[in-house]
């Protein structure tokens, strides 16, 4: 039976979460078709057809999908699954996927499987529970498996080399339940948190939003993204989309530098799979040091400018 991957909304290139979700599909095995939805998505559909290993690209291009509202998208996906006889429906565990996947699952009367971190077999998956302090192996008894995929746990497939076909899908109409009002998106020249090679993250120890500029400067030198703890977001130092952790973004860069972050389990849940972790904290007892590869006990207001200078050389 084949797999339907729901692409992360895009009007241009294929988003990284779609590529990692296809990586998970490859572990399940069989052909993977991709559903591209939105308004004005012809270019995105063509780009998706070039992704390695993609079978058919189903395109739903209509005004009602412009803002990927769950009320409009879920019936479309459910109809596509029924028409195509798919055995698996995969979403990336982004806010789009987390919002829509359970709604699709309920329409199909199946119990979804959230944030899988490994594929054991076609019906059995591993998923972290309790903020990643335990890993559950779960087996689904449902005919269709509706799954969200943790991006850090799977290899992205290549964005090129494929030769999929593109087929238009009939739109399912406007549900008339919700409408888009506005968006306040964080603009940044830096890489996205979930795909950055290096992340510099600040916590309550930063003391203010202004002080975060210190981390921006360091990040620019390293080609890094900037993240934060919940405490820093709650205090209004940085916007919500900076939050790393159990209930924020899950990241696994090659290098994660935690500055003025104590290392609460909810924060560790979001970054402990990073390859190399550096902690800068003035409290030598801070729990973050228990998982850091390199710990520096120092005042961050002295250490961060020094570090910025040292990496520039």
């Amino acid at each position: 039976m084949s797999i339907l991957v729901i692409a992360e909304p895009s009007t241009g290139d294929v988003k990284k979460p779609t590529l990692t979700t296809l990586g998970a599909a490859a572990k399940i095995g069989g052909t993977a078709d991709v559903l591209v939805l939105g308004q004005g998505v012809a270019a995105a559909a063509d780009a998706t057809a070039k992704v390695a290993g993609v079978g058919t690209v189903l395109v739903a291009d209509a005004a009602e999908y412009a803002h990927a509202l769950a009320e409009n998208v879920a019936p479309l996906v459910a109809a596509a699954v029924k028409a195509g006889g798919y055995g698996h429906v995969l979403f990336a565990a982004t806010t789009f996927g987390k919002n829509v996947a359970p709604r699709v699952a309920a329409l199909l009367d199946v119990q979804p499987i959230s944030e899988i971190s490994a594929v054991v077999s076609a019906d059995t998956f591993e998923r972290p529970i309790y903020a990643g302090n335990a890993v559950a192996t779960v087996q689904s008894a449902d005919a269709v498996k509706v799954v969200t995929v943790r991006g850090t746990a799977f290899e992205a497939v290549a964005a090129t080399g494929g030769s999929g076909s593109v087929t238009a899908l009939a739109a399912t109409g406007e549900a008339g339940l919700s409408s888009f009002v506005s968006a306040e998106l964080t603009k940044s020249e830096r890489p996205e948190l979930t795909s950055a090679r290096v992340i510099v993250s600040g916590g309550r120890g930063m003391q203010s939003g202004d002080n975060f500029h210190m981390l921006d400067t360091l990040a620019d030198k390293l080609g890094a993204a900037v993240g934060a703890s919940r405490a820093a977001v709650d205090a209004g130092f940085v916007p919500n989309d900076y939050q790393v952790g159990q209930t924020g973004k899950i990241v696994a860069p090659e290098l994660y530098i935690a500055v003025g972050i104590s290392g609460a389990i909810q924060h560790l849940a979001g970054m402990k799979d990073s390859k190399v972790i550096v902690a800068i904290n003035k409290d030598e007892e801070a729990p973050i040091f228990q998982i850091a590869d390199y710990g520096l006990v120092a005042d961050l207001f002295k250490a961060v400018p020094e570090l910025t200078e040292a990496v520039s050389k």
Partner: protein
Amino acid sequence: MKILVAVKRVVDYNVKIRVKPDNTGVELANVKMSMNPFDEIAVEEAVRLKEKGAATEIVVVSIGPASAQETIRTALAMGADRGILVQTDAEVQPLAVAKTLKTLVEKEQPQLVILGKQAIDDDSNQTGQMLAALLGWAQGTFASKVEPAAGTVAVTREVDGGLETLSLKLPAIVTADLRLNEPRYASLPNIMKAKKKPIETIDPAALGADFTPRLKTLKVTEPPKRQGGVKVGSVQELVAKLRDEARVI
């Protein structure tokens, strides 16, 4: 407007959980239990809407063991009006929770149902979305602001790129994110008052609920442990290690 809030009893967020040696689950005996933190935020939002005059009655629902009464009492002490406990010792998965809540919604006829965005034990982040689908209602998930108007509610959502505001037709489902509000601590007089508020206990069979799990937990294991590393003495030493040993910069 009547509001229904769903609350779940979970292991307290401060507890460092342990996996059982036989790998059947997580040690829950003698562990401190509390209301799921996101559900406290959901209750607080309902209470604030009532204080602002936007809501008339708040009904709190939990599906779980007899001890979930305590969780409901906590919500009543925060300002909810009455509670419903669908009592079961079975482990109830989100689809079954959503179906049970749907039956209660049809009975209670609220205009707004507020849930937590995720429960911090199973981290599913599913129930609200599924309830919305089953009812054919709009959903405002990961909410950081909720503003009811005539026949609609504006919900600002925390999304990967920042914030997004949607207008939802009422009745609707909202799931609470961390920054929606800061929940209050119940005062002693309110805790006393809450003891007199009614909690109705319902047998799941009376609702026609089917809790048969669709997902079977085969085993629960410890994640690989991360080894702590070394402390470095200076920024220079740190940079040298990152360049020559770890080779990440």
